[in-house]
C-alpha cells in the first residue's frame, strides 16, 4: 500500500513546490492558470479511469463538465425573487437552501446556495449518466464513439440555444463557492493561493480515490473486463453494471470539475461543452498512457497549462488534434507505458510487407 501512496506524496510535494516558487519569484499570477488546470485535470483522471480501466471511449465528456457547470451556474444566478410566493421556493427557503445577495443596484436577489446547487448538479449528472450510460455502453467500436460524440454535441446545442442558459454568451456573474473559514472558490486575486491549494487538494483526493479503486476488488474486476469481458462474466463479474458504474463515476468527476471551475471563473460558456474540448481530454488521456492515471495527470498539468497560457496560440486545437493523431498512429496504448521501447523497435524494424487495414 505504501507503493500506491508514495507518488501521491511526491505529487503533493511538487504542487507545494510550484506554489512556493511562484511566491518567491513574485509570479503568483501563474497560479490562476494552474488552478484552472487542476479542475480540468480532475475531469481527465476520471476519463482515464473510464478509458483505461473500463475500456470505454468517450468523446463527449465535456458534456458532463457542462452539465455540472451550467446547472450550478444557473441555480446560483437565477433570481428567485419573482417566484418568492410559490410553495416550492418557500420550501427551499425554509430548508436553508437559498442564499441572498445584493445585486448591482443595491436590491436583493435570491439564488440557490452554491452548496445546494452543487449537490443538485451532481445529482442531475448521476441521473443523466445512468440514463444514457445504459444504452451507450452496449454499443461497440465506432458506434460507441459516435454516440458519446453525439451526447456531447447535444449538450453543446442545448447550452448554445437556450436563452435561459445565456445562449451564446453563457452565464456570468456566478458567485464564489464558500468553503470553510471565509475561503471561497473564486477568481479574486486575494484568494489566489487558497484556491490553488483547494483545487489541487481536490485533484489529489480524487487521485487517491481512483488509485484505491484500481487496487481493489472492483479495480481488478474492471481490468479483467477490459482484458476479456466474457471470461470476466464467467467469473461472476457483472460487466455491464460495472462499466456503467465506472461511466457514472467518471461523469461525476467531470461534473464536479465543471461546478468548481465555473465558480472559480465566475461564469461558463457553451464552448466548454464543445467537441474540441472533449477531443482535447481524450488526447491528453491518450498521450498519458490510456491506463495510466499518473501519466494522464502529468500530461494534463503540462498541456492544459500551456494551452491556458496561450503558448499554442491560434494553433491550440490543431495541437491537440496532432497529438491525437501521432499517439494513435505510433503508440495507441499511450506514451508512458512499460513496453513502449520494445514496441517502437518492433514497429521500425518493420516487416516489408505490412498490410494496410
Amino acid at each position, binding site marked *: 500500500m505504501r507503493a500506491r501512496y508514495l507518488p501521491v506524496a511526491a505529487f503533493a510535494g511538487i504542487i507545494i513546490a510550484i506554489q512556493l516558487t511562484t511566491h518567491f519569484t513574485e509570479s503568483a499570477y501563474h497560479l490562476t492558470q494552474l488552478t484552472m488546470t487542476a479542475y480540468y485535470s480532475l475531469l481527465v483522471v476520471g476519463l482515464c479511469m473510464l478509458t483505461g480501466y473500463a475500456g470505454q471511449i468517450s468523446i463527449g465528456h465535456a458534456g458532463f463538465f457542462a452539465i455540472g457547470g451550467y446547472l450550478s451556474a444557473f441555480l446560483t444566478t437565477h433570481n428567485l425573487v419573482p417566484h418568492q410566493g410559490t410553495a416550492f421556493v418557500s420550501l427551499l427557503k425554509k430548508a436553508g437552501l437559498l442564499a441572498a445577495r445584493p445585486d448591482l443596484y443595491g436590491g436583493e436577489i435570491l439564488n440557490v446556495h452554491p452548496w445546494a446547487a452543487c449537490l443538485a448538479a451532481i445529482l442531475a449528472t448521476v441521473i443523466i449518466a445512468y440514463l444514457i450510460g445504459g444504452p451507450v455502453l452496449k454499443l461497440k467500436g465506432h458506434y460507441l464513439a459516435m454516440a458519446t460524440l453525439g451526447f456531447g454535441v447535444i449538450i453543446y446545442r442545448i447550452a448554445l440555444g437556450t436563452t435561459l442558459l445565456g445562449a451564446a454568451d453563457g452565464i456570468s456573474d456566478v458567485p464564489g463557492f464558500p468553503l470553510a473559514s471565509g475561503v471561497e472558490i473564486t477568481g479574486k486575486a486575494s484568494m489566489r493561493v487558497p484556491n490553488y491549494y483547494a483545487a489541487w487538494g481536490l485533484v489529489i483526493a480524487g487521485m487517491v*480515490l*481512483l488509485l*484505491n*479503486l484500481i487496487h*481493489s*476488488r*472492483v*479495480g*481488478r*474486476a474492471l*481490468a*479483467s473486463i477490459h*482484458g*476479456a469481458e*466474457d*471470461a*470476466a*462474466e*464467467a*467469473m*461472476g*463479474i*457483472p*460487466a455491464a453494471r460495472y462499466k456503467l*458504474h465506472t461511466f457514472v*463515476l467518471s461523469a461525476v468527476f467531470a461534473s464536479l470539475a465543471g461546478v468548481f471551475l465555473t465558480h472559480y471563473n465566475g461564469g461558463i460558456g457553451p464552448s466548454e461543452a464543445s467537441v474540441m474540448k472533449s477531443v482535447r481530454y481524450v488526447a491528453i488521456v491518450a498521450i498519458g498512457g490510456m491506463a495510466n492515471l499518473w501519466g494522464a495527470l502529468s500530461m494534463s498539468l503540462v498541456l492544459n497549462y500551456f494551452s491556458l497560457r496561450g503558448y499554442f496560440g491560434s494553433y491550440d486545437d490543431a495541437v491537440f488534434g496532432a497529438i491525437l493523431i501521432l499517439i494513435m498512429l505510433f503508440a495507441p496504448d499511450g506514451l508512458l507505458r512499460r513496453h513502449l521501447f520494445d514496441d517502437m523497435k518492433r514497429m521500425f524494424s518493420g516487416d516489408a510487407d505490412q498490410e494496410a487495414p
Partner: protein
Amino acid sequence: MTLLSVREVSKRFGGLQAVGGVSFDVARGSIKALIGPNGAGKTTLFNLISGFLPPDSGGIVFEGTPVQGMQPFEIAALGMSRTFQHIRLFPKMTVLENVMVGRHLHGRAGFLAGMLNLPFTWSEERRIREKSLEILELLGIADSARVEATSLAYGQQRVVELGRALACEPKLLLLDEPAAGLNMRETLEMGKLIGKVRNMGITVLLVEHDMSLVMTVSDEVVVLCYGEKIAEDLPLAIQKNPEVIRVYLGEVQ
C-alpha cells in the same frame, strides 16, 4: 443426485440447427464428457449451459434452479464456472491476479468500499490472495505467480485458466477442451489435475477431443453429432457403440 439437467435444449443459427433437442443429466460428484466430431455443437452447448447464449427452446436446470436465459455472471454466482476452448486469460495481469479474479464472487468490496479503502477490504484482499496462492500450489504453478499470465507456455496457461475457474469454488466446472494444444505429457498432467478436482468434490462436465483423456477421466460419455445426442453411456460401452464408430470413423467396409 442430479446437479445439472439439460432438457430438450435447441439452438439454431440462421439455417443451421447447431443443437437440436439435446437432453442429459450430470450427477453430482461425477465427471461427464461431451464428445463428437467437429461441428457437433459441443461448444455451443457449453455456451448455452453457462449463459453465453440463450437457448431457442428447452430447459437447463442447475441444482433445482432453471438457468436458461440467465446472464453468465448470474449463473456463475449459482456455482458454475468454466474454461474456454481458446484460452481467455486476462492479458497484462499476472498469474496470481488472474486467479484472484476467480475469487471475485467471494468478496463483497464494492465501488465505494474500494475507493475509500475501508478496513474490511484489507483482510478480504488478504484472504483472496492467500486462497489464490493455495490454488496455484495445488496445481503446481505457484512459482509463476508473479509472471504475466499470457507470457507462459501454452500448457501452463491452460493450468492457470483451470486455477482461475477453481478459485470460484464452483459446484460444477465446465472444461472446454482442456487438452487442446497440449502434448501427451501435458495431457496426462491435465488428467491428473482433473482427478484432483474431483477429489475436491467438484462435478465436472468436459468437452474434449482427446480420447485417451476422455476414457481415463470420465465416468460417463455423451456423444453429439450434428447437434443431436446419439449416445450416452459408460466410456467402454461408447467405444464399442456402432453408431459412434460410424460417426467418427465412417462406415466399416
